[in-house]
């Protein structure tokens, strides 16, 4: 399964937090803050939308959860300060407005007045301040999985019920995208667990029915089977048109698509396999294939300390040659069945302004690749393999099992014969994701040679850029790339408060990576979703219509 705001299968965050196409479709009906938008008098109210997913909810406790649907659940049952629109604009949610101090270190949010939790208790800025303060307090322990929400934050206070003040130790460019991810928890339920070392915060299971402040209340959750959400009458925002929705968990996309086709579901979450698109369209389902923000990549070990047996991988000429040997068009048409675009830079074009348009996909040319390898001095050996540093150019390609089954094997079958034509042997080694990452990081990145994987970056480029920093070693870094110059630029973009200035730094960083080539970006797969034609189209926000970036899709969907 291709996933997540991160590496495939590294779950949680991922799938949801992706950026996407500027698919402005349908948002009007969801009304970025309106109550269903255009022609509301004609909207048919009620009904339960049945959604299938190949992800799962691993825990209902935000300090434990890891899987993407858990985070989507938090998005719908808890307030967040802001949210994204399908056009990837950040708009109000629980905060109606916000302002920044001139030095960029203080952010003041005005909070929706007179809001209530589903149990009738007041929902105020104090709940938000308590949530952020608690995450800060236990950031090295019990709340460590949420520490990203409060990066550089010094304090969170609520001078009154409708004002939240967040102070930072330095200007932070992406405060809004950070706080967008943070579910605000009911202090009156959770405060009793935030004592001592905070360990109790992780023992609280937060079972359904959950005291909720979002548009829906989670009324029932049966692990590995279903989660049922009922409309929350106490919600501070626009009322959803549906009475509720259900989320059924599937282990395979085949079963999921079969259930949709046989009417057991009204929609399925991304990713719908490209192979199912034609049959679903033929059966009159709405199928959307929109430019996605995920990308598939070919990783070349970039640590200068790598073993002598493959140290030639650091040679820029070799990297250029490998880049030219990837037939991106063939991969898109064969592995993705045309549902994607050839890849170029690590910030996908679908994220909008952050992607550097001057970086183009490297053209496929085996002649150029051969020429570059000749130039590097790697002469062809008797068995058709070039010799580099005294050994044949034969490399192991580590691939995680979750992409191997579908996209990965097909793509490798395209790459392998082309690389053979330039005198390079690629040997596939499939491992499960946990073992694959450990294989990459083993011996401080010295051992591995090449890998193929994918990324589902967050909408804001900060996270994807952070992956290549030296600080990300053994946490996210999967290339062994480490550059002080790059790290300096990373810090600059983090603190650049003017978007134009930040864009320039981010372009510079992408150009550095495009030149150094720790990643050869192969393609950007489309985000494919399918749903019944008996319902209004769910808008996609950041690569999917059901994720933790926005409440708008389920608020706006209605029967036709």
């Amino acid at each position, binding site marked *: 399964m291709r996933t997540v705001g991160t590496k495939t299968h590294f779950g949680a965050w991922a799938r949801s937090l992706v950026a996407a196409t500027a698919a402005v479709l349908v948002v009007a009906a969801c009304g970025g803050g309106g109550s269903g938008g255009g022609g509301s008098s004609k909207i048919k109210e009620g009904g339960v939308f049945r959604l299938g997913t190949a992800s799962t909810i691993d825990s209902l406790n935000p300090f434990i959860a890891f899987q993407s649907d858990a985070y989507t659940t938090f998005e719908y049952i808890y307030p967040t300060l802001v949210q994204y629109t399908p056009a990837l604009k950040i708009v109000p949610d629980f905060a109606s407005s916000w302002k920044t101090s001139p030095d960029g270190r203080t952010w003041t949010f005005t909070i929706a007045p007179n809001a209530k939790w589903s149990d009738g208790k007041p929902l105020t800025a104090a709940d938000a301040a308590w949530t952020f303060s608690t995450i800060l307090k236990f950031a090295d322990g019990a709340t460590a*999985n949420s520490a*990203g929400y409060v990066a550089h934050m010094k304090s969170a206070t609520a001078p009154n019920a409708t004002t939240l003040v967040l102070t930072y130790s330095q200007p932070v460019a992406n405060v809004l995208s950070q706080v967008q991810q943070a579910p605000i928890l009911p202090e009156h339920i959770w405060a009793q667990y935030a004592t001592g070392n905070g360990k109790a915060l992780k023992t609280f299971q937060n079972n359904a029915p959950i005291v909720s402040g979002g548009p829906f209340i989670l009324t029932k959750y049966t692990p590995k089977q*279903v989660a049922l959400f009922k409309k929350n009458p106490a919600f501070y925002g626009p009322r959803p048109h549906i009475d509720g929705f259900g989320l059924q968990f599937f282990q395979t996309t085949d*079963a999921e698509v079969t259930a949709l086709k046989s009417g057991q579901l009204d929609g399925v979450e991304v990713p719908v396999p490209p192979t199912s698109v034609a049959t679903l369209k033929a059966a009159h389902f709405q199928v959307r294939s929109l430019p996605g923000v995920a990308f598939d990549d070919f990783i070349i070990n970039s640590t200068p300390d790598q073993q002598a047996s493959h140290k030639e991988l650091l040679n820029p000429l070799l990297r250029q040659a490998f880049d030219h040997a990837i037939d991106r068009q063939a991969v898109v048409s064969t592995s993705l069945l045309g549902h994607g675009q050839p890849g170029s830079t690590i910030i996908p074009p679908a994220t909008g302004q952050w992607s550097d348009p001057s970086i183009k996909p490297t053209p496929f040319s085996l002649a150029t690749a051969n020429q570059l390898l000749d130039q590097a001095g790697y002469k062809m050996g008797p068995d058709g393999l070039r010799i580099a540093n005294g050994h044949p150019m034969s490399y192991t390609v580590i691939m995680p099992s979750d992409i191997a089954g579908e996209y990965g094997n097909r793509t490798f079958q395209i790459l392998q014969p082309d690389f053979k034509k330039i005198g390079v042997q690629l040997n596939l080694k499939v491992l499960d994701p946990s073992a694959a*990452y450990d294989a990459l990081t083993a011996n401080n990145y010295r051992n591995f040679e090449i890998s193929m994987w994918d990324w589902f970056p967050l909408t804001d480029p900060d996270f994807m850029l952070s992956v290549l920093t030296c600080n990300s070693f053994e946490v996210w870094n999967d290339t062994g790339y480490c550059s002080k110059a790059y790290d300096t630029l990373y810090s600059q973009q983090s603190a650049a408060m003017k978007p134009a200035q930040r864009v320039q730094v981010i372009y510079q960083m992408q150009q550095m990576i495009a030149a150094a080539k720790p990643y050869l970006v192969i393609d950007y797969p489309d985000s494919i979703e399918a749903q019944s034609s008996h319902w209004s189209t769910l808008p996609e926000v950041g690569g999917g219509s059901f994720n933790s970036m926005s409440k708008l899709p389920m608020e706006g969907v209605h029967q036709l």
Partner: protein
Amino acid sequence: MRGADYVIKRGFFALVTIFVAITINFFLFRVLPGNAITDLSRVPHASPALRHALLTEFGLDKPKWEQYLIYLKNLFQGNMGISFANQQPVSHLLLADLKNTIPMVTVGTVAAIVIGVFTGVLSAWRRGSPPDHISTNLAIFFYAFPTQWLGLMLLILFAGILPAAGMSDPFLFTAEPFWQHLGDIGRHMILPAATLMLTSYGSYTLVVRSSMLETLGEDYVLTARAKGLPVRRIVWRHAVRNALLPMVTLIALELGFIVGGALLVEVIFSWPGIGLAMYTAIGQRDYPMLQGGFLILTVSVILLNFLADLLYFRLDPRIST
């Protein structure tokens, strides 16, 4: 006294085997490449501090031998630990999974046994005839099918007729009446149980056929025929009873595996049982869940083997003499 000796000896071996299995369960998953915190520590902007916090929380920062002693101590106190993935007690999680697994796997296995015995007897009695050829070839045909492929084919064939996944209609906000709920579970169970039945009945057919052929050649069967006893009586009362002895072992082993679930079947049909739980736990390197799940599996297989030994002792006089 011979009987008591036999039981004690077998019981002792069963206990030793369980202890060895417990030990292997501990080390087996820790020698797998990858580790428990690789997944869980990968959230955006994760830091080495998160990895350290998780290591400490799960006790993985301690030496292996110390972890092993803690594991043994907890186990002898009936504590299977807390799942790394969701921080819930493993015993509660596994109990919930077992409740889902046992009915489905039992239906599939019992159906396989019944059909296997029936077709095996039929094949042996009509050996060399077209029904024998058809039955034997069908048994081999289904036995050779990869479970996941057959499951997917059934899923596609019965799309829209039978539920594709789960164990009940999931989108009911209010509880349905008991009998209706039971019927709903039954409908959801058909495809996974049928997959299990089809892929496993063949082994019973072949074992029973072989055993029956041996039995049918015995003198007492010839005597029965000479006495003019009806065919059905000869087959079912004289031949089958004796031919089923090898089946005791096979059935005991299969029943032991019931609690292990049918991993592939549960994954294909999203059946929320123990097989699916193990599949998920392996990907997450959730050591406590894996240890707990495999402990239940090994203990049940060993105990049912022990039971088979006792049954053999009772059924086969050759063992006690």
